[in-house]
């Protein structure tokens, strides 16, 4: 009686065609310390853009621009990264706000990643020409950020409602930490912005303290906070944020800008001019 097609569609809402969350139930937490057994690109050049953004990269070839100067065209690269994107609410909101910007969600839980994948496929099908600029990948961003992005490639990074890891011995599992901020500073361009928000006050203070103490980050001004259209989305766009709002919870956000290192800090001048080859 039941054909294969209707069976597959059972997981999707009949009227919107979107996947239904209840069929993608997953654990709320995942251990970032355990060895990972999913494929990881060896370098950012090995990230297959045609798989993620077929409309932008229809050729079907790997986005290989490794030192190849023959392709004079400026190759489009991912600029926004939503770390721990969860069910993808923020990506979906950002997709139409910045239609020409490529963005990716990174999520460790495979079922949740599956859901976001299905969600994007459904959105693309229902809205031709839209949502082509968002994608998702299952990975451990705490380990593999440099495998996905080059130095200074990103202009925005999002850390929305991360796992709080209350116990002190588990603080090293937190996605914002002084040492990991070094890597985030590496992939962010100068002027790039890091957005964090949580409903756990203790974690909010922790994230703020980490960013405040880092020499390559600076809090953005009140004025910038007011004018940045993305800031409003932090608490409203994600599933987790909506849950907090429903329960009347408080949120704590920290938004910081990547700044150039001060010369007194590192004691090295004109790094860019230093070249071994010349």
């Amino acid at each position: 009686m039941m054909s294969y097609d209707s069976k597959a569609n059972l997981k999707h809402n009949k009227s919107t065609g979107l996947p239904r969350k209840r069929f993608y139930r997953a654990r709320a937490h995942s251990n970032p310390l355990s060895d990972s057994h999913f494929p990881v690109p060896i370098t950012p050049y090995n990230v297959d853009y045609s798989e993620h953004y077929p409309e932008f990269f229809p050729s079907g070839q790997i986005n290989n621009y490794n030192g190849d100067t023959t392709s004079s065209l400026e190759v489009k690269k991912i600029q926004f990264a939503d770390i721990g994107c969860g069910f993808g609410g923020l990506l979906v909101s950002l997709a139409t706000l910045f239609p020409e910007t490529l963005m990716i969600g990174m999520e460790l839980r495979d079922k949740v990643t599956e859901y976001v994948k299905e969600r994007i496929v459904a959105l693309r099908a229902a809205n031709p020409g839209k949502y082509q600029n968002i994608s998702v990948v299952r990975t451990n961003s705490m380990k593999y950020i440099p495998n996905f992005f080059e130095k200074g490639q990103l202009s925005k990074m999002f850390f929305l409602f991360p796992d709080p890891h209350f116990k002190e011995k588990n603080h090293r599992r937190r996605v914002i930490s002084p040492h990991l901020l070094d890597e985030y500073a590496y992939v962010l361009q100068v002027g790039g912005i890091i957005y964090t928000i949580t409903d756990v006050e203790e974690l909010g203070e922790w994230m703020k303290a980490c960013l405040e103490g880092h020499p390559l980050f600076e809090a953005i001004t009140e004025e910038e906070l007011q004018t940045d259209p993305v800031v409003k989305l932090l608490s409203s766009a994600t599933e987790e944020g909506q849950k907090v709002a429903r329960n009347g919870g408080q949120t704590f956000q920290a938004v910081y800008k990547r700044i150039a290192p001060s010369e007194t800090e590192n004691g090295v001048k004109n790094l860019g001019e230093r070249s071994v080859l010349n």
Partner: protein
Amino acid sequence: MEESFVEETENNKETEVAPALIAVHPTEKSVAVAVGSELRVFDLHGDCSVSLVDDSGRSFHTDSIKAIRFGAKGRLFASAGDDKLVKIWTTDSWHCIRTVCSEKRVSAVAISHDGLFVCFADKFGVVWVVGLDDNSENQSSINTKGAPILAHYCSIITSLEFSPDGQFIVSADRDFKIRVTLFPKKPLNGAHEIQSFCLGHTEFVSCLAFVCSSDYPNGFLLSGSGDSTVRLWDFTSGSLLDTCEVGAEAGLVESDREEVCQPAVTDICASSDGSLVAVAIQSLHGVMLLSCDLSMGRLSVVKVVSMDISIPTSLGMSSADHLWMVTGVSSIPGTKFPSLARVRVFSGLQKDNLNTSKCGPILLKDTDVPGGEKLLEKLQGSLSIVEEEKVLEEAAEAVKTAMHNLLIKRPYSVEKRELRKRSRNDRKLKSC
């Protein structure tokens, strides 16, 4: 099923052996060998064995030493390992001038070229720094702790090197990564500025070395890996210049079988003029010599020099024309031999020599080794080492297994992973 887990972990404990290590003073004033917890030093200048002195009253190392090295000027020496101690020695009197306690086991150590800082890496991927400036008052000179400067997220750091100009500190890990970080003037506040990542290896990175010449004083970075390759990098940009498939070149890679066996590169060292690079590879009875064309950024195999039956576990070179090697292990499971260290020396490494004469480098006889038999007696523990093929094979196998267990990710079947989840500690507590 559950029992098999227990067995597995017990087996790992048993096979946790440490390879013997060798370090040569930059101008060959002395040579040090570490086997297990034992540190043996021979003074070639004074032609005598050295007895180490530790005034702090602490014992010497109590567990396997995992890293030894001389500072660039040869004034300082550092040793560290599984006993979570980093010991810093002055090489003129061989006194221990500082013992640093680490929270975790130490896997790599490096001394800044100005001799002011010692960095060490632990098995959780954190790199720590200790200042050696004796004028600072708030540091007791006997016992100190390091300050964390950078971290690879929960990955074992396998190697730590300062760039030739001292501007960068380079760290390699088992997640195929090499990170190049600016070493700041005040490193105690952390090293936050990442210059580049050198990505390209497809297995754990096991060793790093810089190669530089008079034309290229800043040098280039070499790395060896579990993927059986040696790679050459422009470390300021992180770009890969060349890859040398050393395992395949040595005829060690057997790809006809379904599971490709890749012997890991275990050590690299470069001659001080940058003309020659020596590579130690698992299962290679000898060393592979590479030449490095820095203007072209190319690596090429010069030759494989074989060495009867031993596989070196660690290499060392000095400005003198010698390649030092040690073959050994802290213990050989299943035999009556407590530990093993066999020191060999090649001479005649000048490039012209290698190109013109077919005999290539000469493996020195025990009596011709610098320091002679006196040196061997000290560094090997005894002059007559049982050079039984079986024993050396066992030792090589033990070292290989230990490295494999430490650095290769074990693939678990889905059922096993589910079983693990079910036997998680937090669950157990709840049910109690």
